[in-house]
């Protein structure tokens, strides 16, 4: 018994050393034979639980649509803050704790953007071919023959002289490496040459919709946008689980000065641009990774995420809905759409009597006061300012794009492939081999992706950042510039009214308005006090 164990240990160790020096991905072969067991032995059962069913996904979309309809009705038609609160709690339960925060429209932004994929183009290397006395056709044929099924669909060549043209994914880098290691014999008695030495492999970023977007994601992304175009941000009022959890804790909200609110609100656009940049370059889903509340919905997650979530909630007691107002990238999209909305929540559907009672009712700073009281600015000066600002828009945008181009290299390091390639490259430069000093390089050394394939992939991803970063930073600068312009343009406001972009249709202000109060009484059959009717 003892002895047998000892052998069992030593033999496989020896075998392991041999195997490890070969390609490690080789599926471990049967080192020990599967024993013949008695007839009545039944191997343990390994269940294969299925993912969430298709039907349940239809249910999710239907629930979303129903919530949007009811929330819009509650905010605009019934003007019921109580109804909205109940809906909010239901949404928190369904989309938050039951669906555990996934899928949500905010994260769906990242699924509907186009993606830079990398295409590898393999062409015969004329110089190398000549040196070995091989024709380009012979090389192409050898490559195609070995690409086999894997690349069959991708070898079109599109009328040019590629022998292989394939999307770079996990498998293709390995496949290219494997084929590159195989050898063919040149004419005469020269030694066989590795196929990899006879071709040039170029990797190029290509912007496309790569992974197909499931219709559920499209629905989750688009339905709240349509609802907002029709009725304002009723999605934010009572459907979004992230909004709901913040609404639930906004107990002692303070008012922020308007300039601070406007300024902080711009961060949402920075976040949107960063998230789209990373999603587009395949660098990861920032919004999902940094979602402060999913950890709470899932009752699990990295400690740091849970702490950040708790921190945002504590802040949210005093600063109502901080994530919604200053960070949410979906909110950033909803703001301009809500400006265009067909109908929108009002403080009162009747005429405002400018009693100022609602002035501080909105915890989100969304109520705009009338601006017809003061002395109007001289028309000419206003026009000059506007003209100057309009000039500033293209200048600022260009400056932003330039800044992005300058930063692109550093931003690209957020992409895992670039980071991996750089770590491997550094080690290679320092020691002439990938020794696996850091855990990234160690893991890479254990995989069978060839180093040159990784480096080429890294370079291609960097090129996609060189395109995408200036676009993202230019967008941010453009938004800032437009904000300046919009602040300079004085729109005449006669009444107290919600700012359509910022109002979340939460219904808190309804109760503060005496005209609305009177309207309710009237509807209940009581006579409103006469002096509350608008007199002018």
């Amino acid at each position, binding site marked *: 018994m003892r002895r047998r164990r000892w052998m069992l240990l030593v033999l496989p160790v020896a075998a392991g050393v041999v195997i490890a020096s070969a390609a490690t991905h080789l599926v471990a072969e049967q080192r020990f034979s599967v024993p013949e067991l008695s007839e009545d032995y039944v191997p343990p059962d390994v269940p294969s639980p299925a993912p969430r069913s298709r039907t349940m996904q239809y249910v999710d979309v239907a629930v979303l649509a129903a919530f949007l309809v009811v929330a819009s009705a509650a905010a605009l038609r019934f003007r019921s803050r109580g109804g909205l609160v109940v809906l909010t709690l239901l949404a928190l339960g369904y989309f938050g704790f039951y669906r555990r925060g996934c899928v949500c429209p905010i994260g769906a932004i990242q699924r509907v953007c186009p993606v830079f994929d990398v295409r590898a183009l393999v062409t015969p290397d004329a110089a190398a071919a000549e040196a070995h006395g091989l024709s380009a056709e012979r090389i192409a044929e050898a490559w195609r023959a070995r690409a086999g099924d894997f690349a069959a669909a991708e070898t079109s060549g599109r009328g040019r002289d590629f022998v292989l043209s394939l999307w770079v994914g996990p498998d293709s880098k390995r496949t290219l490496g494997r084929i590159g290691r195989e050898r063919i014999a040149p004419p005469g008695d020269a030694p066989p040459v590795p196929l990899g030495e006879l071709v040039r492999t170029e990797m190029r970023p290509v912007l496309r919709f790569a992974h197909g977007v499931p219709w559920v994601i499209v629905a989750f992304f688009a339905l709240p*946008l349509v609802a907002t175009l029709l009725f304002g941000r009723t999605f934010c009022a009572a459907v979004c689980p992230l909004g709901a959890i913040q609404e639930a804790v906004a107990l002692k909200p303070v008012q922020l000065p308007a300039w601070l609110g406007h300024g902080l609100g711009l961060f949402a656009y920075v976040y949107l641009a960063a998230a789209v940049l990373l999603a587009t370059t395949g660098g990861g889903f920032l919004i999902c990774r940094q979602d402060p509340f999913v950890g709470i919905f899932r009752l699990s997650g990295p400690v740091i995420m849970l702490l950040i979530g708790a921190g945002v909630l504590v802040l949210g007691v005093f600063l109502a809905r901080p994530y919604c107002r200053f960070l949410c990238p979906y909110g950033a999209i909803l703001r301009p759409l809500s400006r265009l909305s067909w109908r929108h929540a009002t403080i009162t559907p009747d005429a405002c009597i400018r009693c100022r009672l609602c002035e501080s009712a909105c915890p989100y700073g969304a109520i705009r006061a009338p601006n017809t009281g003061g002395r109007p600015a001289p028309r000419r000066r206003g026009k000059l300012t506007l003209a100057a600002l309009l000039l500033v828009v293209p200048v600022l945008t260009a400056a932003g794009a330039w800044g992005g181009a300058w930063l692109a290299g550093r931003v690209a390091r957020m992409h895992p492939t670039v980071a991996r390639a750089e770590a491997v490259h550094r080690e290679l430069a320092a020691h002439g081999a990938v020794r696996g000093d850091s855990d990234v390089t160690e893991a890479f050394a254990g995989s069978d992706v060839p180093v040159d394939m990784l480096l080429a992939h890294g370079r291609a991803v960097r090129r996609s950042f060189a395109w995408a970063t200036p676009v993202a930073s230019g967008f941010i600068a453009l938004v800032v510039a437009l904000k300046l312009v919009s602040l300079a343009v004085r729109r005449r406001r006669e009444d107290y009214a919600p700012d359509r972009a910022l109002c979340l249709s939460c219904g808190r202000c309804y109760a503060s308005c005496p005209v609305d109060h009177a309207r309710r009484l009237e509807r209940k059959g009581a006579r409103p006090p006469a002096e509350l009717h608008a007199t002018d």
Partner: protein
Amino acid sequence: MSPHDADSANGLTRRDVLRGGCIAGLGAAAGWLLTRDSATGGPAAMRAGAAGGERRVWQIDPSACVQCGRCATECVLEPSAVKCVHAYALCGRCDFCFGYYESRPGSHAGAGAEYQLCPTGAIERRHIEGQHYDYLIDEATCIGCARCVEGCNTFGNGSLYLQVRHDRCLNCNECAIAKACPSQAFRLVPAGTPYLPKGADA
């Protein structure tokens, strides 16, 4: 007067036109996205077996996994939705299992619980007959750290391997482990066949 009432007095406003444009644009974009979905898939490896527009879920290709341990730490769930799975068709039913016992020389002497590889004790060793044992994984306890998988792959038959378990996995927009996986072992596979079992053909 709400702005809407004021606007509608003079017919179609600029706002109406912009709104119409937005809705039309959204509809067109959504429609286009959806047709793209059925027309094209991802790279060939992803497309393989996936009928047009079929929903896909995350899975680990066990032949690519290098047992780096990130599956235990990177998943948005704690413990991870990745668990060790046992391909019993491949297992040698060893007395000394390299996925069960720590295989440092000398450490096998007692072969007791204290020499177990699994940090959470998720593997149960059950006697079958003679020198043969079954090794059963308790998924509720397993954290997907791959230590047993490494042991079994390096010294044994490689019958232990990691899989995303779909009763736990949230099928995130983008799997957090997939991004961190150094060997890019994660794939999107058709939801109808959500596992990449080892030794299915054995």
